[in-house]
């Protein structure tokens, strides 16, 4: 039986009629057109479906949409406000951390969750935060560099 849920997605309240077995990934993509949320393995292994739920990184392919009712959801679409890119997005571009781009939204959001909580992570902490995300293109080095660069940028901005 379908039910109505309310999600606060990238700052916008969305009401969606869902089947109980739909995952958050399906709802964000198919009902709300947020295509940055990728479905790769559909089993919680690749991390390309990662979104932030109430600020925490969550694999949206394994979260029933009904369980996200009333929660704040952030996807990569929500990171660029007023056409300005988030420092993480800028850093990913500048450091060539994007090749095919499939893993990128998940990587950025996991990094975002980390930096929100820990503005000065070590490289090991960054690797730990990204452990659930697979990349088949870059070999991860540039991604780690991008996050390190972004943390520097965020620190500069916040100290202004």
């Amino acid at each position, binding site marked *: *039986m379908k039910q109505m849920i309310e999600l606060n997605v990238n700052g916008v309240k969305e009401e969606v009629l869902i089947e*109980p*077995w739909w*995952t958050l990934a399906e709802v964000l993509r198919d009902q709300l057109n947020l295509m940055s949320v990728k479905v790769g393995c*559909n*089993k*919680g*292994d690749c*991390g390309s479906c*990662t979104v932030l*739920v109430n600020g*925490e*990184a*969550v*694999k949206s392919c*394994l*979260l*029933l949409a*009904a*369980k996200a009712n009333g929660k704040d959801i952030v996807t990569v679409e929500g990171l660029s406000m007023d056409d300005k890119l988030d420092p993480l997005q800028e850093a990913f571009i500048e450091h060539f951390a994007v090749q095919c781009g499939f893993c990128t939204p998940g990587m950025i959001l*996991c990094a975002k*969750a980390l930096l929100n909580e820990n503005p000065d992570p070590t490289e090991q902490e960054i690797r*730990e*935060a990204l*452990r*659930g*995300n697979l990349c088949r293109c870059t070999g991860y080095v540039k991604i780690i560099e991008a996050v390190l660069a972004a943390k520097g940028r965020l620190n500069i901005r916040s100290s202004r």
Partner: protein
Amino acid sequence: MRFELLRPQTLTEALTLLDKYRERGKIIAGGTDLLVNIKDRLINPDYVIDIDNIPALSDMHYDGEQLLTIGAGATIRTLERSDDVAKKCPVITQAAGQLGSIAIRNVATVGGNLCSAIPSADMAPALIGLGSRVKLTSLQQQRIVALEDFFTGPHTTVMRPDELLTEIEIPLPKPGTKGIYLKHAIRGTMDCAIVGVAVIISISASGNNCQDIRIVLGAVAPTPIRARNAEAIVRGQDIDGFLVNKCAEMAAHEATPISDARASAEYRREMTKIFTRQALRALWQDMSVDS
């Protein structure tokens, strides 16, 4: 997948639903194990009972003396980040930090990990090593089962279809007790363990005599197992390198691993020896790590 999702607001409601639907229903807490099984078509429940809206199931409390009680609905991340757990039994903090990834831990629950009953369940070895007990609750009754006796085979436990695992009781380790959980896996914490080893050891104040020890192996038998013969080698003895090696060899002997996509039985058996030895050495030599 197709099912009806039921969202009880109280424990009694949840138990009533379990009692009504039994084998046709499945409990969902975080869902990181259940949804994978449904997507893989290993199970096909008509009803999925969501216990996420019962806050009491996520409580953690300490009775002030001996017992830490963790609600089955507590997320792995909560356990990992809890100062209380880190102070009182850091081996649980360590085990929690080796389950999946942060995104999984934000959603997965300790009760769910135990009820999945996969032989490599990351929370099991440390909890068994601490002598933990689980509370199984149904409409009719409550019973307490030693976690060591909880698992009966891969994906099977002593739980009846109308029971819910509600709490995990952890007797706090006495002063002078240390613990460690080592996980050997291909993709780090994200993979199921090829071998998981938890060692909890009480060492005398003089620093060398093993007063008590528990060695629990994950992923190398149909269930997590105590390596009792290996424990007997060390218990009551003064620890030295020779004893550590003998103990590790016996642990490998007690393992009954299978060959699968991740590793061969022979490799698992060898790694049981290596990681048991590593665990013992780490505890024996690192006197400043508390359990």
